């Protein structure tokens, strides 16, 4: 749908976005507050950021979080890709309904339930809780998100492109690797990014499934948040937001550059053709 935007439309979009962004903006601004009291503006300062770097425990937690996120999102993307192929391409096999149920249910399942159930599994089989149990838990949750992202792309994928590859002599595996995968690559990358941020972000499931040696950054933040609002937490939060914003900007710019390059190519080809 498109049409002329009325004032009502413009206002509601503006208000909606203000609601989404003002809390984050305030948080960022107050992370540069020199005063320890949140409500008193004591002038600009970066002293809370300097303090962060010296906080060894925090750095250690950040390192654990990052490692878990990289490993779990990578495995989750592979598993999610397989699950997406099963959901879109394999129409009849025993237990298909159960399978799609298991892919979609974790998306809405309250985290306390998922976390508790995984913990009880690890206890039942006698796994020591720590880095690997946490990674397994995150992989399970995020593979479902990855599967949903990739299957949406596979659904509107023109199957005749794959058929053309096979008609031209490529085996199914080859045509998947040479044709399908490159075409759906953007969705695979966004699936990975989604899995990565979900893992970075998770607090509830991590609290259940991790052990003493592997405290994550969200867990650290949570324990400090419970004690009240402090400029240090504002500073960590701002850093985390900054990393994401940077990533998004880089992604957007590189996409734009690719488009510009393509246009330039077209012009060059046209000029050559004359």
């Amino acid at each position, binding site marked *: 749908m498109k049409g002329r935007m009325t004032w009502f439309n413009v206002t509601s979009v503006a208000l909606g976005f203000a609601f989404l962004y003002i809390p984050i903006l305030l948080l960022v601004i107050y992370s540069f507050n020199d005063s320890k009291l949140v409500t008193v503006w004591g002038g600009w300062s970066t002293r809370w950021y300097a303090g962060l770097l010296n906080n060894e425990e925090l750095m250690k937690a950040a390192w654990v979080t990052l490692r878990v996120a990289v490993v779990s999102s990578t495995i989750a993307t592979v598993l999610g890709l397989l699950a997406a192929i099963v959901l879109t391409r394999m129409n009849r096999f025993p237990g298909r309904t159960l399978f799609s149920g298991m892919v979609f249910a974790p998306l809405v399942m309250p985290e306390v339930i998922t976390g508790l159930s995984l913990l009880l599994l690890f206890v039942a089989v006698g796994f020591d809780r720590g880095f690997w149990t946490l990674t397994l838990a995150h992989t399970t949750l995020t593979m479902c998100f990855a599967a949903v992202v990739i299957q949406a792309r596979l659904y509107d994928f023109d199957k005749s492109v794959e058929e*053309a590859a096979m008609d031209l002599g*490529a085996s199914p595996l080859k045509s998947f690797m040479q044709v399908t995968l490159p075409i759906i690559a953007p969705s695979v990358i966004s699936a990975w990014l989604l899995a990565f941020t979900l893992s970075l972000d998770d607090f509830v499931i991590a609290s259940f499934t991790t052990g003493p040696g592997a405290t994550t950054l969200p867990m650290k933040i949570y324990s400090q948040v419970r004690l009240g609002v402090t400029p240090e937490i504002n500073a960590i939060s701002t850093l985390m937001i900054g990393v994401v914003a940077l990533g998004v900007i880089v992604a957007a710019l590189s996409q734009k550059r690719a488009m510009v390059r393509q246009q330039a*190519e*077209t012009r060059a080809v046209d000029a050559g*053709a004359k």
Partner: protein
Amino acid sequence: MSVATTNDTMPAPAASPSAKKARRTPAPQSSFAPWKDPNATPIVRFENVTKRFGSFVAVNNISLDIYEREFFALLGPSGCGKTTLLRMLAGFEKPTEGRIIVNGKDVTDLMPYERDAVNMMFQSYALFPHMSVERNIGFGLRQEGMPAADIDARVDEAMGMLELKQFAKRKPHQLSGGQQQRVALARAIAKKPRIMLLDEPLGALDKRLRQTAQFELMHIQESTGTTFIIVTHDQEEAMTVSSRIAVMDHGELVQVSTPGEIYETPQSQYVASFIGDVNILECRVSNVLPDGQLELNWVDGTGKFVAQPPPSGATKDQQVWLALRPEKVRIGLDRPATDVNAIPGKVENIGYLGSISHYHVAVGNDESVTALRANASLAVDNTINWENDVWLDWPADAGVVLIR
């Protein structure tokens, strides 16, 4: 009696197939007819092929031979099974029953990538969006493990044939529809298949571009000597390009003949009305004349007709249908000399198309017949107008007697 008007975009059904045929090959049509030669071996043979999807029968027990260098058209409305038949030949669908033999070899159980004699051009073109034109065209050759230099030469040749050289480095989305269509063709042709399959290859092009592309297809088919099998729902396209047409309906072959035969001697009402415009008069055989001709009584009005019998013959009192092409029906204000093959009527509607006019004439018991007349002169004396009482007549060899 009914008037079937299947294709209004075809102003002169009589002229188009024969005229375009004449332009096509300098050699007379009859010289190439391997299907008439009992010793010729077909390059493609469908043997009692049936394809069911669940309870739906897409293709029902079809047996069909196609010969080398033919330009063979599978023609029919959507859902008639023509695409399924083509996809079974390419290997994307497996027949439920029957065998498919290509070049003397049973390929029924081979996967698409194992059928090197066959390549397909897809309706959606199915170009690889992440590869340039030349990489697209070379894709099939790379699968064979051909040396790079040979691939380059073949790709170059294919691009030359389809005038794509200046677009070699472009991605598919940087091409127009017509250019994409040529890349899709070049990609399949580069594999030098014995048989090219084309699934509605020109369906996405506009009418003007489509005509150019039809001649291009014919040119490539002749210059490479490849057997082409095309699936289309466009009867004009099938008539233009093909050496033989198989008309399909509900998963079955209705008639397999040359375009001329299909148009001039259809074997059923379905074929007659699917190709071009036709008037169909329901009749009963009143007499079989000594010279073999049939005397017919018109069911929906008073009229006595004489016509050639169908190949299978006809007996007295049999129900038959007389198919009359509009351009073979003469329309005039005066009563013809003989009562045979002549009926009176009143002009209901006139469609003026410039070079010709369609006259829709009410005849018999609330029936209607269409006649065509060339607007050859500007003379006004014989002008036929709305509401005029007119006479329609035709020679004995103009109509075709159909028994179904």
